[in-house]
């Protein structure tokens, strides 16, 4: 690794089933992009490099097949531009360079071989709270197993950035917000702040939807990915893949599963609106 942006980690499909021990499932911030990168390879190793503001590395062995997806990044190999998303076969000595492009916060590299390394509780997914898995930095080396058998795969196709309000289901503590506040929450507009990581994204509330919010003393209760919690000072935070297992701040609503990936890719200053849907409706939604 010759250049590595912040919050660059190894992620696989995640580590579900350990929540009773206080460990959230982690896994890719944009699951669909992670899966697409695997699809372009027609059979990929389980583990991806998840990156943010880009990275660069040199392949020491090889050859090694690789696919890339997630957001719109700018990829070059040996200074030659390659269309995004991509599928390539890297040769020994190839220099790969990825830089931020038109949209998105999270990108994925998957390979036609397994990244070697220890599993923690059955997964290689890094979990920033529990200190599990691998965070990557400059100078790090990844070792790969043998090339996996692959099937015919579709040609990489670009995904458009989704638009429109984010669909939510009213949350665990929606009833602790008064009618007027709930109304402002769905009529108002929020803005993505620069304070985001794998645990969650803080929103700016320029309309003051939660201004003057009473500080509630609530019993600590279960958190799920996509929960929108309101801090005591009125700051909304959308909790993401490395969420705390439980928390005591009120949760007004929860993003539907189909919209979590799209939310993760919103850059700072993006406007965000929320639209409540019923549970039955949520299950039929596509991103």
């Amino acid at each position, binding site marked *: 690794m010759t250049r590595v942006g912040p919050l660059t980690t190894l992620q696989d499909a995640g580590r579900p089933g350990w929540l009773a021990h206080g460990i959230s499932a982690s896994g890719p911030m944009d699951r669909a992009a992670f899966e697409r990168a695997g699809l372009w390879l027609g059979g990929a190793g389980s583990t991806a490099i998840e990156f943010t503001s880009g990275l660069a590395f040199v392949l020491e062995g090889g050859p090694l097949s690789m696919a890339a997806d997630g957001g719109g990044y700018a990829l070059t190999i040996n200074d030659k531009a390659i269309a995004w998303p991509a599928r390539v076969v890297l040769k020994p000595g190839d220099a790969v360079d990825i830089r931020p492009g038109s949209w998105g916060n999270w990108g994925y590299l998957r390979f036609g071989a397994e990244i070697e390394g220890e599993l923690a509780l059955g997964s290689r997914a890094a979990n920033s709270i529990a200190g*599990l898995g691998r965070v990557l930095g400059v100078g790090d080396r990844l070792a790969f197993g043998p090339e996996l058998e692959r099937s015919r795969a579709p040609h990489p196709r670009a995904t458009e950035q989704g638009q429109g309000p984010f669909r939510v289901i009213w949350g665990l503590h929606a009833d602790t917000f008064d009618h007027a506040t709930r109304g402002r929450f769905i009529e108002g507009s929020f803005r993505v702040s620069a304070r985001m990581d794998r645990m969650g994204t803080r929103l700016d509330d320029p309309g003051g939807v939660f201004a003057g919010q009473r500080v509630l003393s609530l019993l*600590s*209760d279960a958190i799920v990915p996509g929960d929108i919690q309101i801090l005591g000072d009125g700051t909304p935070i959308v909790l993401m893949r490395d969420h705390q297992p*439980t928390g005591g701040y009120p949760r007004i609503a929860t993003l539907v599963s189909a919209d979590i990936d799209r939310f993760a890719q919103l850059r700072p200053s993006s406007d965000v609106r929320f639209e409540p849907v019923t549970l039955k409706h949520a299950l039929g939604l596509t991103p």
Partner: protein
Amino acid sequence: MSDQTAPLPLIMPLGDRGLLVRFGTTLSEAANRHAVGFAAKAEAASLSGVVDVVPNLASVLIRYVPSIVEFERLAGEVRLLVSASEVDTIDGRVHAVAVEFAGEDLDEVAAIVGVSRSAFVAMHCAEPLRVLATGFAPGFVYLGFHPEALRVPRRAAVRSQVPAGTVLFAAGQTAITSTDIPTGWHVIGRTEFRNFDPTVEPPTRLAAGDMVRFEVAR
């Protein structure tokens, strides 16, 4: 819980892949025992489409796959389980945890309770405590309940970080940290006991319903 009828819990969705069975919005001995007991029943029932059963202080989160089981169907199964029998009393394992009672807030806590430092430690360790829940952070456990005389509110200020193995005290409970965390609870001691080791399965040693006997470390 003898033949006392369990209060009907609230069954509600948490997003589109979670179902919460809530036995109370405040923490009580009864609500916690109902939650721990129901979680054991739900776990044993191996419900179709359920991927995770997680007991909390007064609720149980059930994570499910909606393409296998829909919310309404799962909620029906949950209602049947709730009413099938009275709450089982869990016979948890008993653990001994040695604590060096020398925390920064120990004197303050003893003063609030109105006893000497050594008397507070004796009162704290007098009875075994039940593991109420794991939550907040990996391996973090809430233990209760202390008698009313030991009910002390949280601190006004939050410490930005205390290390793993810190023994905390507030709200009639004792807690043990397993990772570095921020906390508004009183720091009363330290222990060598670690309730989180991701290199073994399961990664925690204490489960809701277990009992912990605190001892003074020598």
